[in-house]
């Protein structure tokens, strides 16, 4: 019950901070759905692409500091 109240209070704070509190319910739904879809897309994109970019970056930097000769074909693969 305490957790549920706390989540309700957090939702109330979100309504107040963004100013959505004063809008009519259908406007609230539009804003919430747009925000939710944007956040979902951000999470999905980061889940798919961030590991690859991190691995590439690490290999690039280890190439500068380590200095081991690696073929460019190995980098692309």
């Amino acid at each position, binding site marked *: 019950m305490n957790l549920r109240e706390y989540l309700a*209070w957090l939702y*109330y*704070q979100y*309504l*107040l*901070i*963004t*100013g*959505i*509190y*004063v*809008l*009519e319910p259908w*406007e609230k739904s539009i*804003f919430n759905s747009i925000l939710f879809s944007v956040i979902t897309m951000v999470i999905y994109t980061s889940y798919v692409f961030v590991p690859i970019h991190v691995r590439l970056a690490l290999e690039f930097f280890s190439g500068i500091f380590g200095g081991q000769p690696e073929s460019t074909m190995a980098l692309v693969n």
Partner: protein
Amino acid sequence: MTESPSTKPANGDVCQRVKNGLKPERNGLAKSLYRCHEKKSKHHGQPEEEEEVNATSHHGVPYCRPFVESYEQTPMLPAVFTYMSYGILTIFGYLRDFLRYWKIERCNIAGEKEEQRDFVPLYQDFENFYTRNIYIRIRDNWNRPLCGVPGATMDLLERTSPDYNWTFVQSGRVLQDVINLGSYNYLGFAENKGLCADAAAEITKKYGVGVASTRQELGNLDRHEELEKLVARFLGVESAMSFGMGFATNSMNIPALSGKGCLLLSDELNHASLVLGARLSGSTIRVFKHNNMQSLEKLLREAIVHGQPRTRRPWKKILIVVEGIYSMEGSIVRLPEMIALKKRYKAYLYLDEAHSIGALGPRGRGVVDYFGLDPCDVDVMMGTFTKSFGAAGGYIAGKRELIEYLRSHSHSAVYASSMSPPVVEQIITSMKCIMGEDGTTIGCDRVHQLAKNAVYFRRKLQKMGFIIYGNEDSPVVPMMLYMPAKIAAFSREMLKRNIGVVGVGFPATPIIESRARFCISAAHTKDVLDRALSVISEVGDLVNLKYSRQKIQPSVARFFDDNVFEDIDD
């Protein structure tokens, strides 16, 4: 304000503490009046607080009590969120305007007719956009109908809105005993029982209610003459004149006092009536920063040296227009320095004591009494009877020649109908009560009670962690809210808990600095204030309003907790 060893200077001289890297001039002190004291400020700096304290001075400007004002800076995160919420509300405003334009949605507010579509648009500016799309959505927090006396508690009519505040439906229920923290009822004279109400009822039986004429024609009753003599005696000046409406007193008399070729120096945050009067007069208006004596002195020097704009002739007169207490900030004017400046540069001073008359000073005579100055130093003293006397109307007081001139040259005296007799009687009775001439000490007690209430309430709110603006002695307490949704949320939550407050936003304040303004009254007892404070704390936690990052020293807080009400019977 307590004086600890760190605040009291060793030899009793001016202690000018520079806080937080702020220079002394930021405080608003006139630099030229403190020329020899700058080198003493070095060893008194304490970087945490953002308050500014002036203790007594020994030869410059006499402040016989500490002048503590605090304007904590807007914290960054609420400011960012406020801009963001205004941006989101603006986008939704454009969406709704689009729907209204293409007739997908019905337009409930005034708009142009079909035939006028190609004319110059009337409702496209920002004010109308703001009204349509933001103000109407939270409009249920204003214009609440009262059905009784707005004393310490009031009765409100309950109303709901089926279509999101475009129309209201009254359910018929009355919310009883709502604690009133918004009425300008500083000394508690807004009551329907007691001496003042009885006197007003008696006079109505004798004179009726309407006067049916202007002061100049047949509207000058003997009660008006007595009222004016009483006001002059109350303020300690030669003579006074009363008008039917406070707003009209300012806007109709400033044009009579200054015209073309005169210079008006008015404060940044002056009331709309002063601004309107200044604009109607046709004089040149220059604005100085709020309560900032250095800015004022710079303007004065520049005006005297350069004269009128094109011709370089000397100004016919220079009139400084200020207020006693500024109702949106809760700040008190720096009167001693202003009088010193006015005497040095030979300007005139117009002091609007709408909120401070009756509410400040040990005898309730306003801001002049609060600082212990001579009322003859202020050239034109103006005030209203609406706030502390529980009536309506305004007055102007000063030298006899000035008032005689205004009797024939003021628009309000010549064209406006005079004050109604029961109102005049209410003022006479309440003023006599404050002066102690009716034989009781009610007035004196109320003045002291208000001072205690104001200090107690402010200290408690600051200790709880809210950002409060203004001087620590003023009975007007603005509490910062910042976000537009929080104005509505705060007001509604307080009403649910049976307390009525006034929320203020744009355009009365700058757009991100919206606030809730509490007006303390002498009619509030300590229990009422404690209940109000606990509810404000609860709502503040719910709505997350405790932004302050100042640390109040524990010794000071303890002083006010234990001692401030020790001599009041519970």
